[in-house]
């Protein structure tokens, strides 16, 4: 869609507003009276400049690379703004560290972070993700096969999906110990129902005509499953897989709050807050966000390759 020329200032103002709230939320460092001091003006000016550049850029770009550049520019301007705000307003480091400190910590403690990553993501989250999504998939097949189960299990599923992890995590740590196994169990519980619901919805997402076609062939349930329902369910399955990546990550980290060995991202975040090592806290968050974004991206990529035929991918 082509934008009219006066869209730029309007969007700039909009962006300004958005970031103002963001900054206010993040730091909360100034009261209303301080709004019109020069520091704020500097920050706003910088933001306006970055946003304008972004608007101009986004109206030009057409390629995927260009889109990435716009997103990266936006992220970069947020980070610069953060750094600037923290420095100009002397925000205490133990409240919000500047990104530069986070980067420093990240580099200096890479070894520790790697071990945490292995413990939390590769062991806890991944194991739980695979088991949980796998089990949900198999149960979905059962539920799809026996409509009695569908009508009996799915309403309960909505109920169970609402069990907050903060309640289940202590129980599961008590049951499965302090190691990664209990984290995996928490993740299983978190991803199971979203995946189940998506897969079941996907398996049902065929048109009457598509099903009737196979009925005229006298196809068996298995044949219907492999040639029709599973391919048709793919977009839904991937949707579930994508949602579950972030859930798995969060589950594994939070479960570590309720007992863990002396490593893992959740352990690190909690312990580092206690030690007022906020650089390390945010470095751990960066690791988590990187891992989450990467897995999400990976899932999206596989989705693109596997469901190339779906209108949303063309």
């Amino acid at each position, binding site marked *: 869609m082509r934008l009219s020329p006066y869209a730029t200032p309007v969007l700039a103002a909009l962006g300004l507003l958005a970031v103002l709230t963001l900054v206010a939320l993040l730091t909360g460092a100034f009261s209303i009276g301080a709004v019109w001091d020069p520091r704020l003006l500097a920050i706003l000016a910088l933001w306006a400049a970055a946003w304008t550049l972004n608007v101009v850029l986004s109206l030009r770009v057409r390629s995927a690379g260009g889109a990435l550049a716009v997103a990266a520019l936006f992220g970069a301007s947020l980070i610069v703004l953060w750094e600037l705000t923290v420095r100009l307003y002397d925000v*205490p480091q133990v409240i919000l560290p500047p990104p530069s400190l986070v980067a420093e910590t990240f580099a200096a403690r890479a070894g520790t972070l790697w071990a945490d990553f292995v413990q939390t993501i590769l062991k806890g989250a991944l194991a739980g993700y695979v088991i949980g999504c796998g089990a949900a998939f198999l149960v979905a097949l059962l539920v799809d096969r026996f409509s009695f189960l569908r009508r009996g299990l799915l309403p309960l599923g909505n109920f169970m999906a609402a069990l907050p992890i903060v309640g289940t995590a202590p129980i599961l740590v008590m049951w499965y110990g302090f190691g990664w196994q209990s984290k995996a169990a928490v993740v299983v519980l978190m991803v199971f129902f979203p995946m189940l619901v998506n897969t079941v919805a996907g398996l049902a997402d065929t048109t009457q005509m598509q099903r009737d076609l196979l009925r005229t062939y006298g196809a068996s349930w298995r044949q219907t499953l492999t040639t029709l329902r599973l391919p048709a369910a793919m977009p839904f399955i991937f949707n579930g897989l994508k949602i579950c990546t972030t859930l798995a990550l969060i589950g594994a980290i939070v479960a570590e709050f309720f007992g863990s060995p*002396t490593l893992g991202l959740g352990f690190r975040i909690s312990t580092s807050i*206690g030690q*007022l090592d906020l650089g390390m806290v945010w470095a751990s968050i960066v690791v988590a966000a990187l891992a989450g974004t990467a897995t999400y991206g990976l899932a999206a990529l596989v989705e693109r390759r596997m469901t190339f035929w779906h209108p949303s991918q063309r």
Partner: protein
Amino acid sequence: QEMDEVTLQLKWVTQAQFAGYYVALENGYYEEEGLDVTILPGGPDIAPTQVIAGGGADVIVEWMPAALAARENGLPLVNIAQPFAASGMQLTCWGDVGIESPEDLDNRTLGVWFFGNEYPFLSWMSTLGIATDGAAEGSVEVLKQGFNVDPLLQRQADCISTMTYNEYWQVIDAGVTPEELVNFRYDEQGVATLEDGLYVMEENLEDPEFVDEMARFVRASMRGWKWAEENPEEAAMIVLDYDETGAQTEEHQIRMMGEVAKLTAGSDGSLDEEAYQRTVDTLLGGGSDPVITAEPEGAFTHEVTDAAQN
């Protein structure tokens, strides 16, 4: 009359461990001193040090190891009063696994509180020369213990950290007999560190008005503590009334008050410098990875307690 507002951040949830402050509030001692006190209960992962650094509280209840570590990390906290004279921390182990003395802790799995509460333990292990990575022979495997005594009851750990006034009794309440347990009090091991002191930001102490405010605060608080020591049951009931979660029970709080009274007994609020030095030595001492690396300077002041006692 203008009331001065004071916000106190506790280290943990509302319980008899903090009875003195709640008593002072309930009995109007603070009011008598012209103070309008807000008590913020703590909870898991609320770091009082962080709260005061952000300006969310004027004064906090914190353990000295965490406060000194924060001070070394650039957050200048100063101890202005020390209502707790003795340490209530201990390591509680199953007797039947064959632990009789600290030397037997090698190769065991131990539950430890983190979040700034791990410093006393690390110092102790350091003093004993026991590594805590769980990897090598002759080291202990450390678990980050959650908020309860389950790891011990479930035998996921051989020992866990307990407070004399709280977790220990939860173990007992779970049906375990005292004979089945072996306790290592940090006091008796010579590695006791000071707990539950009152800390403020150093820069605030330059303001005589603030010092005066704190003097009144400490005076009222100590009055509260002494009253609580003498009326443990009523104090427990006051605590119970302030507990918004409704989770605490009468029996447990009364007992806790009794145990806490043993720790506050004899303190008039002023810091015992000998105990301070012992804490510092413990934290500095031991092997490779001391909690603090240099003798702290100006980490406490008698100014407030001196003023309070006049």
